[in-house]
Structures are given as structure tokens and as C-alpha cells.
């Protein structure tokens, strides 16, 4: 199934950030971020200075995609939780609303049990937010046929040439 374009507006973006911030604080995690299944980063909070979040997003999505493939091979729909344990840092990955990936990076200042507990609560919140986003997208699609004007309706060849001008 092809997923429709993901369009994110201010209101939902703020709600997502709030939810991630709460999760980071409650679980005592270093970094929490949200990626879509195609590897695009949606939002990230926490100690991000030293982290290449773009690469992290792409590799997480690749990891989840490969694991999904494995799941289907043995007749599972998906493995909804992945956990990678390191010497110092650990990564907890879970799938939200079947389309986005919630990643929590944490160290010895917290525990896997606490992270899992808090993640479960955050997932319920995020589920609701993504339902709203889907509903809004559906509404926009209807509006599109009437009066919605996409900011990209007027992209010109010159705009594109400029991107490659350096």
C-alpha cells in the first residue's frame, strides 16, 4: 500500500514535540525522535548536538524496513519493538500508528523497564495525534478540489535552476 504524502502543520507539530519532550523527561532518556517509515525525520528532542539525526533517521528506517521484511517472511505482520543494547547507550525503537517510528536513546541513568513503560503511554498520545493528522489530510484533499492553493502550485523552472546554481 502506498502511503499518502505526509503533511504536517504547526499545531500537530507542536503537539508531537510536547509529547516527545514529556517522554524524554519521564523516561530520563537522552534523545527521543520520531521518523517516518521512509527515513524522513519528523521531530527530535533532547541532547542533539553531537548526534547526526539525519543519518540516524535513515538508518533507523532501513533497520525497521529490514526487520519488517523478516517479520513477513515468518508470517508476522511486524515486529513492533526493536531494542539494541550497547555498552553505554541503548536504542529502543517502536512503531506508532503503523507508519511512524519512535526512537529513544538512553543510558545507565534509566532502565529498559521504565523506558518501555513511558513509551507505551507516549505511543497512545502519538496515535491520537496521527489520527488527527490523517483526518486533516483527508479534509484537505476535499478542500483541494475547491479552494486550497498549494504553495508549490507556482514553482517555475527558474526556482529549480536556482537550487543548482552554485
Amino acid at each position, binding site marked *: 500500500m502506498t*502511503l499518502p504524502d505526509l503533511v*504536517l502543520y504547526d499545531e500537530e507539530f507542536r503537539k508531537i514535540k510536547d509529547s516527545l519532550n514529556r517522554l524524554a523527561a519521564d523516561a530520563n532518556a537522552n534523545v527521543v525522535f520520531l521518523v517516518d517509515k521512509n527515513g524522513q525525520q519528523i521531530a527530535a528532542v533532547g541532547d542533539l548536538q553531537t548526534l547526526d539525526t539525519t*543519518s540516524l533517521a535513515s538508518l533507523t528506517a532501513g533497520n525497521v*524496513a529490514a526487520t519488517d521484511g523478516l517479520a513477513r517472511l515468518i508470517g508476522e505482520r511486524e515486529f513492533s519493538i526493536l531494542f539494541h543494547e550497547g555498552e553505554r547507550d541503548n536504542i529502543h525503537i517502536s512503531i506508532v500508528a503503523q507508519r511512524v517510528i519512535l526512537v529513544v536513546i538512553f543510558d545507565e541513568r534509566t532502565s529498559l523497564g521504565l523506558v518501555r513503560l513511558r513509551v507505551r503511554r507516549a505511543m497512545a498520545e502519538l496515535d491520537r495525534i496521527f489520527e488527527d493528522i490523517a483526518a486533516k489530510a483527508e479534509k484537505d484533499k476535499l478542500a483541494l478540489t475547491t479552494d486550497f492553493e498549494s504553495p508549490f502550485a507556482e514553482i517555475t523552472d527558474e*526556482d529549480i535552476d536556482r537550487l*543548482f546554481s552554485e
Partner: protein
Amino acid sequence: MTFINYAAREINCKIVYYGPGLCGKTTNLQYIYDRTNPSAKGKLISLATETDRTLFFDFLPLDLGTVKGFKTRFHLYTVPGQVFYDASRKLILKGVDGVVFVADSQEARLEANIESIRNLDKNLKEQNYDIATIPYVLQFNKRDLPSALPTDELYRKLNIKREPTFEAVAPTGAGVFDTLKAVARQVLMDLRKR
């Protein structure tokens, strides 16, 4: 699947370089990486075997500037070209916005090119995309090799819908940015219709 973030005013697009094994997909990305301003690019990630064959994918994020006030990001991916990595190729095509087909110009690789285009068509269909409508660009790579077939013959055999076609020598960069620009143009123009 283009990701438009109105809150951060960003558009993210995914472009996949497809083609048979050793046709030069990774070399295309490597050249783009080497020639792009450090502030406009992220890390080039290569998931490769010890002998430098792509195992899962290469990934290069590019920040090209703004269009209509939106920061435009292109995420470039390559697929593993070797036939037996088909399951991985399917995964990478998920959410693709545009495809570059890199063909190996050598006579001995003609069949491999044709087979790979067929494989692309099949894998796109499985994801509910249609090769006839998706932004798509063809590149004849390795034009510098003596065994390269004439371009008109390659065009007849490999061009499927009069897509823009470019000659390239990826290690020297000839044709590399022209190819990227052509596919980026199609992807962005596609947004007009949304």
C-alpha cells in the same frame, strides 16, 4: 512520498538510484558528495560489504536551498544492484519520489540493464507506483569505456517513455549533476499538481 513540513517549512524528497550491479550508482553519489558544499550535505552513509559492494543502501542527504520559502531537502539513496538483493531493493523503493536509472553502457551489460529495468518496473508496481508516471531519468554511464555501445542503440533499447537521458562518466563527474538536476526538476514540478 514527499514529506511537507509546514511547521518547519521544509520539503523532503526521496530519490533512488537504480541499476544493475557495478553500473556506478554509488560512484554517482560519491561524486555528488565530493562536490557539494559541506554546509549543504550530510554524511554519506554506505552499507557495503568488505569488497565495497553495496549491501543494503547508500544514503546522502542534500540541502539544496529554498523554493517558495520552503527548505528543499533531497535524500539520495542507491539500491544494491546485484540480482539476489531484490528484497532489499524493494524496501528502498518505499516512499520514493523519483528514480534515476543508471545504465552500464558496455555491450556485455546490455542484458543486465534490460533485466534491471524490468525488475524496477515490477518492484514499483508492488508499491503501487507506475514507472510510466513516476519522475524518472535515464543515465548512460561509463561513456569513456571502449566497449561502450553507441548511445542511439542504448536509447532504442533502454529508453521507455522518452525520459530525459544523459551520458555520464561518473568518476569524473561528467553528466552526474545534469542527471540529478533533471530528476529533481521532475519531482518538484510534480508538486505543482498536488
